[in-house]
């Protein structure tokens, strides 16, 4: 009987795969208030997932209430994040939705893809809205933290066409050793027309979603011992009705993966990215495309 007991209890514990595949950081995704602004009796509450602005793609919800805490029935709500760099004092923005969308729950929804963390400069968010025909404008400082979920990493680059692009991963937040639907936003900085008017002039900090491009995908494990390991049945990302880019990525095991990309414009011309070798090369660190995002799960 004693023998039986010692043998039934395992010498080495089995992996707790479900716990390993998702830590609490990536599991939780709830909108919480990140900051509130006040102007002329109105309270503007800005909510982001888990109450923290992070580098990369952030969904944003704005709620505007009057002093009694009632929905202010605001309209034409705008949002504009601007960072003033500590290094040179220059101002820059990031891909964002300027005109927020009203949803049925009384929120105004949008997104911002922060390209820098707050340690590089001071991020201000400028909110504009209209109540009963009167326009209001306010701004406040926000903190953009490091992206702790590497599956939501982003990259900014200048394309071969000279344009400034940003690619941000939106999904999967919690990848699995499985076929994963991958979603990315691809953005491009718009060229300002004319001289700036009063600061901040949104037309000088404007970005738009890139339409009709293709993001070719080649996921590989960069670790030398993995010998440039890849996975089968991946699908390139193409734009869908939500104007985001959707594709399929298969992760064959947990660990470090590099998503090697080639961005093609509407005519199939390469905007950025290089083809990576597909040879199996044990002991050699995987060669990355010119355009890539590293993830980890």
């Amino acid at each position: 009987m004693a023998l039986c007991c010692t043998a039934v209890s395992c010498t080495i514990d089995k992996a707790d795969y479900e716990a390993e595949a998702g830590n609490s950081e990536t599991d939780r995704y709830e909108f919480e208030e990140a900051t509130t602004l006040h102007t002329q009796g109105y309270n503007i509450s800005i909510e982001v997932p888990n109450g923290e602005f992070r580098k990369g793609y952030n969904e944003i919800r704005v709620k505007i209430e009057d002093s009694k805490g009632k929905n202010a029935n605001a309209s034409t709500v705008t949002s504009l994040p601007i960072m003033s760099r500590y290094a040179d004092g220059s101002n820059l923005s990031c891909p964002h939705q300027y005109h927020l969308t009203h949803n049925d729950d009384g929120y105004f929804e949008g997104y911002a893809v922060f390209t820098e963390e707050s340690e590089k400069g001071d991020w201000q968010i400028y909110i504009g809205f209209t109540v009963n025909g009167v326009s209001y404008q306010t701004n406040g400082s926000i903190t953009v933290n490091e992206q702790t979920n590497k599956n939501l990493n982003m990259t900014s680059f200048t394309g071969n066409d000279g344009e400034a692009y940003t690619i941000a991963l939106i999904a999967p937040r919690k990848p699995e050793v499985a076929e994963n639907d991958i979603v990315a936003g691809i953005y491009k900085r718009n060229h300002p027309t004319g001289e700036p008017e009063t600061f901040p002039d949104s037309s000088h900090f404007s970005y738009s979603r890139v339409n009709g491009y293709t993001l070719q995908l080649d996921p590989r494990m960069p670790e030398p011992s993995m010998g440039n390991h890849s996975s089968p049945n991946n699908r390139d990302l193409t734009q869908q009705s939500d104007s985001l880019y959707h594709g399929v990525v298969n992760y064959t095991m947990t660990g470090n993966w590099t998503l090697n990309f080639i961005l093609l414009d509407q005519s199939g011309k390469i905007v950025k990215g290089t083809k990576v070798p597909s040879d199996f090369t044990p002991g050699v660190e995987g060669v990355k495309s010119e355009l890539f995002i590293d993830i980890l799960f």
Partner: protein
Amino acid sequence: MKFIIAIAIFGTMAANAQTVPAEKDSVQTLEEVEVVGTAKKKIETDLKMGVTVDEYLSSSTDISFIKRGSFAWEPLLHNMSSERASVTIDGMHIFGACTDKMDPVTSYVESNNLSGIAIKSGQTGSLHGATIAGNIDLNRKNTPFGLEKKWGASYQSGFEFNNNQWFNLGNISYSGKRLAADASVSYRKAGNYSDGNNDEVKHSQFSKFNTSLGMAYKTGERSSVRADAIFDVAKNVGFPALPMDLWLSRAIITSVSYRQLFEGKLAKNWETKLYFNAIEHYMDDTTRPENLVHMDMPGWSTTYGLLSKTSLQQGRFTSEIQLNAYENLSIAEMHMYPQDRSKKTMFAYSWPEVTTRFAGVSANGSWEISEKSRLNFGGAVALHYNRSKYAEFNRIFHPEAAAEKTRFLPNLHLGYLLETGDFQFSIGSGYGHRAPSVSEGYGYYIYNSFDRYDYIGNPNLKNEISYEINAGAGFKNNKASIEAKVNYFYIKNYIVGKILNAGSPMNYQSVGVKGYTSLPHATLFNLSLNASYQVLSNLHWEAALTYARGRDANDGNLPFIRPLSYQTTLHFKVDQFGLQTSFNGDATQRDYSPFYGEDQTPAYAIWNVSADYTFAMGDCVTVVQVGAENLFDQYYSTYADWGNIPRMGRNIFTSLKFNF
């Protein structure tokens, strides 16, 4: 240390159960069937008495082995890999926990806890569950009630010089009126062996501890309960042909059974057994600093089962009906450690928690048409269910794969046997299905160091279906015997690995990815010839010849098909002195398969001799044996030596056995 003390205790006990015939009074009939069936069979070969289970099995012409080292050889029945054969212990199903087949079921028993091994070919082996190649049933020692000699014991020790193997096997048995018990304990420890060129084959060491206990209690005049347990630990086992070794494997194999005899009724007996076995298996590559990446590959296999059988007899008709049900859970993990250990490990399941449930009814019957002729027949129907807990792993290569799959497995066989005078003829046929194994169905990046491919299972594989014919002819008189047996299998949906043009290897040694797929069909032909002749009253000659041919649907050769092989043995016995010599070898592997990663293995022949002396010291019968295998230190490797690792060079062995 434990085992040495145990052996010392056993050594002081005296008596012998094995050679005493059971008396047939009503009290003692209970275990009689087993006694008649197995008492004469000893687990030893003609040449060597201190054999391992593997060495014993290899003396059968039906069995060949894939060898990855000097331990835990994978038995091939009729040149078919272990997925196609069922290996059971007294009908109990057990499944190894290693994805690389380092632990066939036969590695978890020891020669001294077995009384015999029953090999059934093709569909005649379907009594214990669906099979294609047949069944290898390992029979536990089982002392009957009420023997004249209550206590029996034996102790055997030996040393083999090539790999410094030292083994100790101890047994004890008790036979009371109501209580019977068997216990065994064994320990083997071996260092690296040397090949025929006297080069050390690194990572070929092993150590194995095995102990077993069986107790039967008579609950009534014709009924008894029996509990059995085997506990086996192998530690620090090298696999020279693989990139990893074994740190530890442990198995606990338990059962309780109830047996009832009936007299004067259609049913002669009825036995029901509940069983449980658990295996844990931990591979280890820390002994291989040359490996690029450190990996942990633990595996677990747990099986619960039920077996219930009854024997019927009515006139010239006898039959066995058996119910088999089991559930197995197989889990295998792969953890890879990046060079920078501070980084997160890479993880995947090689077996993503795969559950197998099996339930089936099988029957074997025999109808004695006349004194001379008999018709044997049988069949089985079974349901086989698989579930992959993490089916998303399987969907990477098979996006449409379902997590669950149920299969229906029918098996049928029919044979006719004719005996006239000294001649015997048989002819038979069979039809049967088998389900893919856990690796074939759900395996995930299982590295095969033979062809150096990573293998991916396919949950959608069809059942493998075998159509089989067999025939035999023999002659036997007082002096000589000769027997020829042939069988031919036409196997539909034959499962093999095929190169996939998708994905890339995960294990750094591999060159590509193969997926298990079904060939339209494959065929297998086996021929064996056995002859013996009593040259003089004290000089006996035996010989065997086997030939096999396996082809896939494109007429290409199948892998691991044994080339023409032969063995011949001479025994000479004068009084207490015995001398044996044997010569065996394989011809050049003519029909090898480069497509499946094989290269041609040259012919080899080795010569073995042994001498023994038997004497009595009071109640104790003592046998001493000394011999040499591969006497001329031939350097060779066989067609089924994984990665062409060389076999052992000259090995001088000694053995000493006491029977009390």
